[in-house]
């Protein structure tokens, strides 16, 4: 009995080693982290070119544009969340491992957030400056992105797990995730706009935090169920 206990890796250790592995893989292939960031910056560049350079216009549309760009950039990186693991068979190893699959799913989501959401938060001030946002508004933008991208990573994991192994999964993934991501977009972008207009910030941030917590409690289980179904 005690032998078995020793052999069984603890859930936390398992999650940690999966996280470490995913981060190591991401660092080995920096393109996976950088490409969505370039995409984010480029979409943010497209809008002023399309709608005109007026300062007032940019300040007005900035929060919305940056949030849509962040949402699309997150979506771009979601497709590969389980793909490599699926192709090289390590996903099956996760499925048969004694550690609960939902814990592993949470770890994968966290790794995805660290390699896609967090970098977005870090570069967002650079873009915000070009949109003439004040320091306070930039801070709120970062806060909303920080909370919102957590939800997006968790929500996206479900979609990525459902579409892993399907041909032409990218377009399908967007179709599945975008409607569900609407609350995050609405609260993220509107909170920044409200602050820019001189309103309070707490309500929106509370909502984003609450939504992130809700997703944290649903997503691992839904992702685990979806992974099992996709790998039948």
């Amino acid at each position, binding site marked *: 009995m005690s032998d078995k206990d020793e052999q069984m890796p603890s859930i936390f250790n398992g999650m940690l080693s999966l996280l470490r592995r995913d981060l190591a893989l991401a660092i080995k292939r920096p393109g996976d982290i950088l490409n969505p960031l370039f995409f984010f910056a480029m979409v943010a560049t497209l809008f002023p070119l399309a709608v005109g350079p007026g300062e007032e216009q940019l300040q007005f549309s900035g929060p919305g544009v940056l949030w849509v760009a962040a949402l699309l950039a997150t979506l771009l990186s979601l497709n590969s969340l389980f793909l490599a693991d699926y192709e090289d068979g390590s996903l099956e190893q996760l499925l048969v491992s004694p550690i609960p699959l939902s814990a592993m799913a949470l770890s994968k989501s966290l790794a995805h957030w660290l390699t896609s959401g967090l970098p977005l938060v870090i570069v967002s001030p650079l873009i915000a400056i070009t949109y003439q946002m004040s320091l306070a508004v930039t801070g709120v933008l970062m806060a909303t992105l920080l909370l919102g991208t957590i939800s997006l990573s968790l929500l996206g994991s479900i979609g990525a797990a*459902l*579409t892993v192994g399907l041909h032409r999964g990218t377009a399908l993934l967007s179709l599945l995730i975008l409607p*569900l991501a609407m*609350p995050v977009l609405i609260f993220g972008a509107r909170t920044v706009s409200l602050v820019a207009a001189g309103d309070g910030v707490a309500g929106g941030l509370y909502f984003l935090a609450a939504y992130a917590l809700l997703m944290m409690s649903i997503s691992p289980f839904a992702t685990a169920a979806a992974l099992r179904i*996709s790998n*039948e």
Partner: protein
Amino acid sequence: MWKFFHKLASPPHFYRIAKSMIPWFAVPGLLLFAYGSYAGLFLAPADYQQGDAFRIIYVHVPSAYLSMMAYMIMAVSAGIGLIWRMKLAHAVSAAAAPLGAWFTFLALATGSIWGRPMWGTWWEWGDPRLTSELVLLFLYFGYMALRNAIDDTTKADRASAVLALVGAVNIPIIHFSVEWWSSLHQGPTLVKKGGPAMDTAMLYPLLAMILGFTFLFAALLLRRVRTEVLYRERRKRWVRDLILSANGKS
């Protein structure tokens, strides 16, 4: 009672029972629909503010209600199918999705046509119900797209069931957030809650239409589930016997 449900879950049994059940929904549905259409279009008085344009509610309100009802049916039966591995429940879920999408589209289209004379625009982003209805349509599309993308029926059933359940958790949140978002918009909302009480001459046709639409929806759903069951069980013996006996008769 339980035995009845257990028997209902068997596809051949359901196929037979559903056939006898359809008229019980279709006939009252058609009667109510006919009464509601006639009374709504001709007997009900014109609205003192909106004139005859208000009459579109006789299609709009039942469609909007059914668009949400269908999602609920879809999600609940998806959950039942996922938990108890009941094949019939998945068939119901698969059959409900296109119907729900259609009613959602109908609600959007009639809402848009109604909005033209009332609000002066075909589309008003400021109205939260319009926007969340549109999101609901996208959710239906996503569900059906996922189903179509997976070839294996069992796998498609279970994957789309997970999506339907995640969507069901999100729908109230989406609706709430869209409402919060639009409440910040400037401009008056023309359709108010708790507006002037409805005259009974207007109300009864509406209730008849809602009930009639529901009955017709049930009849259509049963019909679609029957077809779905037949298709899914196409390699089973009872389907072959059914077809052979049908051929023998003719």
